[in-house]
């Protein structure tokens, strides 16, 4: 393909390529001028002629004026068809910008508040010997980090076989029970996460806590509650991923003399491998941020407890939740530090999920940025 295009630039170098959809400098000027005049008009009306209407209403009004002016100006210059196209483009882009601003300010808020108490010591110390008069950077949340890793790790151990089994059952079997199971999994994914915690509390901790510490407040109980939250998420995601595996591959495998189980194991799983890994990482990311299931199970604890089967345990969300409720400012700042660490962890997990799930099955040549650049160059 590129071979036929490459000699072209020499032959028609005197031509200027036309791009009908591209914005000209005049278009950009119209856009900028509309924005400036909208702000000026609103300022004139609301700040000079009346007594002001508050910043939020001013922004909404200015935006609407901007869209109106831009629409009129573009209609006048290029006609109705182009104007509709441009106005819709502007509205869609600004809607995206609003969402982005909201997200960015949320992240910024946590970062600004959390960075104050976040020192390297956060990952090496627990809250032993911390009194309300000490600064927020004293002590740390290592016990919460350890708790989170242990609880989520154990939850993964319980939920992974269940989820993969359920997803395979839903997608690869021909049982009549698939429908009820699917409805049940759906219902479970809508389960309020505090109910998962309460459930574990009611069936294990309440009746058995007195007889053995394994069924008391501890990380193990928390991992069971978290597994209840993870199983439906992972199951549904894996099921979707398995459904994306073309039936032609299953047929091809069966036609080669494979059993159904062998087909699932050797053809379906490898084909869906990246998707399944993504599903698992997303399940972890979901569980890592859960606070509610832990309140009645891990309970929270200020000191390091690295045994998940005995004694109450902290975790990052619990650490945040418990510290922010405290009356002294230093504890609140520690809480935000916990939230920041948690957020970075979740973002890291999502990035990992995207990275694992990236498409590597396509032809490497056409996908590489270098090759794409070359194609662009030669088509110019």
């Amino acid at each position, binding site marked *: 393909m590129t071979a036929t295009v490459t000699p072209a630039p020499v032959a028609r170098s005197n031509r200027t390529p036309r791009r009908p959809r591209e914005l000209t400098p005049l278009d950009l000027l119209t856009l900028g001028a509309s924005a400036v005049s909208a702000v000026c008009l609103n300022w004139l009306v609301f700040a000079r002629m009346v007594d002001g209407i508050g910043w939020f209403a001013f922004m909404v009004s200015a935006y609407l004026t901007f869209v109106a002016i831009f629409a009129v100006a573009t209609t006048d210059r290029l006609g109705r068809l182009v104007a509709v196209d441009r106005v819709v483009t502007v509205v869609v882009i600004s809607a995206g910008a609003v969402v982005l601003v909201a997200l960015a300010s949320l992240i910024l808020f946590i970062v600004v508040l959390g960075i104050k108490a976040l020192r390297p010591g956060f990952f090496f110390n627990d809250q032993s010997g911390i009194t309300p008069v000490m600064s927020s950077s004293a002590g740390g949340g290592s016990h919460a980090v350890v708790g989170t890793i242990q609880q989520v790790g154990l939850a993964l151990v319980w939920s992974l076989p269940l989820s993969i089994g359920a997803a395979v059952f839903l997608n690869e079997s021909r049982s009549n029970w698939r429908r009820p199971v699917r409805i049940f999994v759906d219902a479970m994914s809508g389960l309020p996460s505090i109910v998962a915690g309460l459930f574990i509390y009611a069936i294990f901790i309440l009746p058995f806590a007195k007889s053995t510490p394994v069924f008391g407040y501890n990380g193990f109980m928390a991992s069971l509650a978290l597994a209840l939250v993870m199983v439906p998420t992972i199951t549904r995601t894996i099921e979707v991923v398995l459904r994306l595996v073309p039936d032609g*591959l299953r047929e*091809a495998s*069966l*036609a*080669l*003399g494979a*059993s159904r189980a062998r087909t699932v194991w050797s*053809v379906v799983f*490898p*084909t869906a491998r990246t998707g399944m890994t993504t599903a698992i990482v997303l399940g972890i990311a979901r569980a890592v941020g859960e606070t509610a299931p832990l309140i009645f199970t891990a309970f929270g604890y200020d000191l390091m407890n690295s045994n998940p089967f005995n004694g109450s345990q902290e975790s990052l969300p619990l650490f945040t939740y418990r510290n922010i409720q405290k009356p002294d400012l230093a504890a609140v700042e520690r809480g935000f530090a916990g939230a920041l660490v948690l957020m970075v962890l979740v973002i890291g997990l999502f990035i990992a999920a995207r990275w694992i799930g990236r498409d590597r099955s396509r032809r490497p040549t056409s996908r590489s940025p270098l090759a794409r650049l070359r194609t662009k160059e030669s088509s110019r």
Partner: protein
Amino acid sequence: MTATASAPSPNASPNASANASANASANASANASANASANTVKPRVELIGGPPPGSATLDARDACAWFGDRLVLEGVDLVMPAGQVTALIGPSGCGKSTFLRLLNRMHELVPGAALDGEILLDGDDIYLPGRRAQEIRTRIGMVFQKPNPFPAMSIRDNVLSGLKLAKIRCSDKDGLVEQSLEKAGLWKEVRDRLSSPGGALSGGQQQRLCIARSLAVHPNVLLMDEPCSALDPTSTRRIEDTISELRKEVTVVIVTHNMQQAQRVSDFCAFFLAEENEPGRVIEQGTTTHMFSTPNDTRTLNYVEGRFG
């Protein structure tokens, strides 16, 4: 029937397995750049636990097929002789593909599918209660309409996937890969990139990879369900050449909508037709020459001359 089964396949005679693999690997390197006819003389790589050697005769007796309550195929009697290419022709929806899928027990995988009659593979019914569908499908390979190489596997692993999936062992995997790809007419194009993914090939190459994959388990019969319908004329030609080569060692049954193709590649032809609201039936069968020059039934004549369908 048995005479034709053994005659055109000298390389299929059971070798002493001890020196067979040694021969194969020696020949593999010696014949790397040899001419096309060399691979047919070369003793083929031995498999352990695979199908018995040689091509086999398929014999359908009064075969019927249902989807749910709907009878789609009725009373098909058709012999597909060993070592020959049999083409199934007919308009769409007349049950050719269904019949093909009856032959290696793929039909029963469709929910609600049912069947009747007997399909004899070298005289034994493949639908006898004691027979495993997996064993049947290993002996009767299949190539589908749409190329479907396993995307998670390399070209080499695709060819060898049948061994893993059907639990067949082979001592000379490299030799098997080369031999299978050579039979499918793909070896020269891919020998330098056996470890690149199968999905990176062109459509025609993918289909030939699928043929190589089916051949790697040394099936007795190869079913092809419109293998060229998604391909361009050049790739189609390559695959037709491949089919002509294959008849030396495997029985081929091919469904095709392309009359010229049926005429070019097949020895025998069966014309399927489904009248309105009727199940599909075989209207006429015979040698390809007969079917295309002097068919007994006017409907066959009309169809092969392109007057309908």
